[in-house]
């Protein structure tokens, strides 16, 4: 397989190329044309389909290839997350199409049909298509449970009224449809052979500061909403940077470390508007609206398409910061996180596995592997608890007596990461603090000493990145927010690095914040992972509702292009699901995310306790 095709087939569909999360700009044709096909992610899929002769060159294919000016912005974005270089694929796509045309190859024109004409009457011609080059970019997902489905049509409505009309039309013709969010779907449920409705054009944001809310369209991504909110001095509780806020809400509710303070599911919005499958419209605050605040463990059908939500705005104070509290055991970390939650200390709380912490802070997988080895083997850190809070919260943590990696030390570690592996003194501080683990972190001036020893600098860190991107990385890491725990956890631009080496299947659930239960599940998932020869890792735990419950994630990693890997992760997932169901039946307190699909608008209390 050539390098470009391999890169193209490894696109993770994280949609990070659709948001300007690095401030380096995004592919210009994306916002102009709106279809995912005109973003680097779509071009990756398109090139793979062309190279493997799954589709022919079409009019849109030529247009998509032409719309790339090889600016290289996608390299910055994708390399930051996955270390892949999409510009090679963009070039290969352009070359492929150019060669085809130069050789006198045909350029297919998509055939017109009645339904398309009717859809276009609703959306206008530009925003509905049956061109295969566009359809193919909506046809698959790296999720191991996803089955490739080529949609007949892709539609990009602009308004609630257009969606309503579209729903009526599709019902009239009995055409299946799915709504497309920004990237992947946890369970691969956004593929359909009928109509894919992409809400990318619906990016309205209207702030109502008097009522501490912002009304957003379903095309608004978490990063963009957070940026707009922060500019006004507020914070919203959102999922990963590229995730669409309404989509996250629909499929799972908002899962974030800030859920420790801001709650989950219905805690995060004031109202939501929908278009039902029959085309009727309703808002959750209407008396006669369907009761989406309820939760049923047996699941529910889609209530329709969420066309807007009024998300809650939360205040920020100027003394907020983050700390990482290291622990030798998961039991201690869970105890601490639960204690913080019960005492309402901190805004965001998360127990992070060594894999997560390493992946988040390291710009390359090599550095991430080294960081993990150092954290686990040399420093004896099994996991860390991240706490974001104001000065009073951080003082409370200090009063609790735990050694912490504060912001200053975190910056030194992040920018000094390349020096860590040769820092022999790390072994000594670990050995000499064995009686009181991590107590060296309490030494006055330790952060300063670390700065001296590690000589952290953006330039030094950039040396570890690809040669031609070093200048970019040096400028990027010179920006304080790139090593700021608070900023990074609000904007969540590094979350997707977990899938840098391989895509992953997350097992996510709500359950009591109890070590014995979490440990039992951890062990069970681990055994399943081992049995199926999959890389597997504990992900994170975030307390919710004052620590009475928590969100827990465990991940299986797999090669998204390897059939054997996919088969093994499918089997592992089934076994893990059986394990969850078994414990769920026994405990009565576990809610697997699978059950939450289309129910993310429910009341937290109904979800967790009913």
């Amino acid at each position: 397989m050539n390098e470009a095709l391999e890169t193209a087939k490894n696109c993770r569909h994280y949609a990070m190329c659709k948001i300007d999360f690095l401030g380096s700009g995004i592919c210009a044709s994306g916002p102009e044309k709106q279809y995912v096909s005109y973003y680097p992610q779509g071009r990756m899929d398109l090139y793979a389909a062309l190279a493997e002769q799954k589709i022919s060159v079409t009019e849109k294919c030529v247009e998509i290839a032409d719309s790339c000016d090889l600016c290289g912005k996608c390299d910055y974005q994708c390399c930051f997350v996955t270390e892949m270089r999409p510009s090679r694929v963009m070039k290969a796509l352009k070359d492929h199409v150019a060669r085809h045309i130069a050789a006198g190859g045909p350029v297919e024109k998509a055939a017109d049909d009645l339904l398309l004409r009717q859809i276009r009457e609703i959306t206008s011609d530009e925003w509905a298509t049956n061109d295969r080059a566009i359809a193919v970019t909506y046809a698959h997902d790296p999720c191991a449970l996803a089955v490739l489905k080529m949609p007949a049509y892709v539609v990009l409505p602009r308004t609630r009224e257009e969606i309503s009309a579209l729903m009526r039309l599709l019902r009239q013709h009995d055409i299946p449809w799915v709504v497309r969010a920004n990237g992947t779907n946890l369970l691969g449920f956004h593929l359909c052979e009928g109509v894919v409705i992409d809400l990318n054009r619906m990016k309205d944001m209207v702030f109502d500061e008097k009522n501490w809310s912002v009304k957003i369209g379903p095309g608004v991504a978490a990063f963009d909403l957070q940026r707009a909110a922060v500019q006004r001095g507020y914070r919203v509780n959102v999922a990963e940077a590229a995730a669409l806020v309404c989509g996250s809400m629909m499929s799972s509710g908002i899962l974030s470390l800030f859920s420790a303070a801001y709650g989950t599911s219905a805690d995060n919005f004031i109202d939501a508007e929908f278009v039902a499958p029959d085309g009727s419209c309703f808002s959750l605050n209407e008396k006669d609206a369907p009761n989406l605040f309820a939760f049923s463990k047996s699941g529910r059908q889609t209530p329709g398409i969420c066309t807007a939500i009024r998300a809650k705005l939360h205040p920020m104070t100027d003394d907020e910061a983050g700390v990482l509290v290291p622990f030798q055991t998961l039991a201690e970390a869970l105890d601490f996180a639960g204690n913080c939650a019960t005492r309402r200390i901190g805004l965001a709380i998360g127990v992070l596995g060594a894999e997560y912490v390493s992946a988040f802070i390291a710009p390359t997988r090599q550095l991430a592997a080294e960081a993990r080895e150092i954290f686990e083997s040399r420093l004896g850190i099994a996991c860390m608890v991240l706490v974001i809070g104001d000065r009073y919260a951080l003082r409370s943590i200090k009063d609790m007596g735990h050694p912490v990696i504060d912001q200053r030390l975190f910056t030194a570690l992040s920018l000094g990461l390349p020096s860590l592996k040769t820092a022999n003194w790390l072994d000594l501080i670990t050995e000499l603090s064995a009686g009181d683990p991590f107590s060296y972190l309490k030494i006055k001036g330790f952060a300063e000493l670390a700065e001296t020893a590690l000589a952290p600098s953006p330039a030094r860190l950039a040396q570890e990145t690809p040669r031609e991107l070093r200048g970019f990385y040096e400028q990027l890491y010179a920006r304080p927010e790139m090593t700021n725990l608070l900023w990074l956890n609000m904007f969540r631009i590094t979350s997707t690095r977990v899938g840098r080496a391989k895509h992953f299947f997350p097992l996510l659930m709500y359950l009591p914040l109890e070590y014995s239960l979490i440990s039992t599940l951890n062990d069970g998932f681990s055994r399943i992972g081992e049995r199926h020869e999959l890389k597997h890792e504990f992900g994170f735990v975030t307390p919710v509702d004052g620590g009475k419950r928590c969100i827990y994630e465990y991940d299986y990693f797999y090669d998204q292009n390897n059939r054997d890997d996919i088969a093994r992760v499918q089997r592992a997932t089934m076994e893990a699901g059986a394990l969850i169901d078994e414990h769920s039946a026994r405990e009565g307190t576990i809610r697997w995310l699978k059950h939450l699909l289309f129910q993310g608008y429910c009341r937290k209390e109904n979800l967790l306790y009913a």
Partner: protein
Amino acid sequence: MTDTNTQTYVLTGATGFLGSHLLDALLQRGNRVVVLGRSSASESLAARIDKLQAWFDLRGRSGQIETAEVDFLKPLCGLDPKTYRALCKKAGTLIHCASDTRFSERNRRESTATNVDSLEQIIGFAKDSNAPWFHYISTAYAAGIASGHCPEAPVASERFVNVYEETKARAELEVALHCTKGAIPFTIIRPSIVYGDSRSGRANCFNALYNHVRSLYYIREIYRKDIHEHGGRKSREYGIYQEDSDILHIPLKIAVAHNGAINLIPIDYFVSATLSILTHAQTGTYYHITSDNPKTVKDIASYCEAFLNIRGIEVVYGIAPDTPLNPPEALFNRFIEPYLPYLSDTRMFARSNTDAATAGLIPPEFTYDIFQRCMEYAVGANWGK
């Protein structure tokens, strides 16, 4: 009672610093040794002993060693009755060297388990195997918080610097009580702080004194690098600079309670003295394997300066200075904190029993030459990493 080179010894703690050197010495003189111990997380006991044999160059003596993986916190040492009985038949004089040497209160439960609770099984094994002797390797610091003269006698103090001293003192009492009850002849052997071989500098464990030097070694490396590779801005902030003669000046105050000394003996002396005590042991007797000429912390500081090419270490007595500590000072002082009582020790250890049993064998004076030899070896061995 005297032993012979055909005698069989049972040794615990053989993978530790003192135990491994005793194992080497016993094998060298032709004894058979049954090593009782545990596997590590990654290696069996036999593999650990094999490694030691390689380090001591004991190839060809494998026939003299037998290993048995045991758990002294379980009945019959964690063995099935048949294996236990078979092991008893092979046993001989027991040297109990295994110890949890950690100082931290946090490890009290583990320290107590290893140092005290395990004795029931170990002494039981000595009894069941009709061991002719039970030699307990304790520490001179089991004397507890005391000043001045410490006799070679049962522990009188009830106050201790740390959980290590306390559990070793408790263990001594248990050994004396139960060996007496069981009519097992016993000795209590109390070494002070042990460093490497005074003649070759060799060591296979680099704790205690080595940690202090290693701390300074790394601190020096950090600031040298800062000066040579990064312009030395951080160093200048704290008055750290390179003198003309390649000497690094690091202002580093070490605050100790009062003037005192560090009682250090080399491993070669510990081994010679212990073997001699085994040969001339008197039951119920306590032996201090200590130095009558301990060095002061200032002596050791000057050794460190000379060895590491640094200047600026200042030892202050009494209350710690009011001035805030600079980062290297804070780090170093944090590291030596658990050891502070041993840096200004005023205890003098009687050693008439030892002198009698060892025919006047005394430890060599801890000179700079010996210090240098040992530290050069440690650096060459990358501090055992």
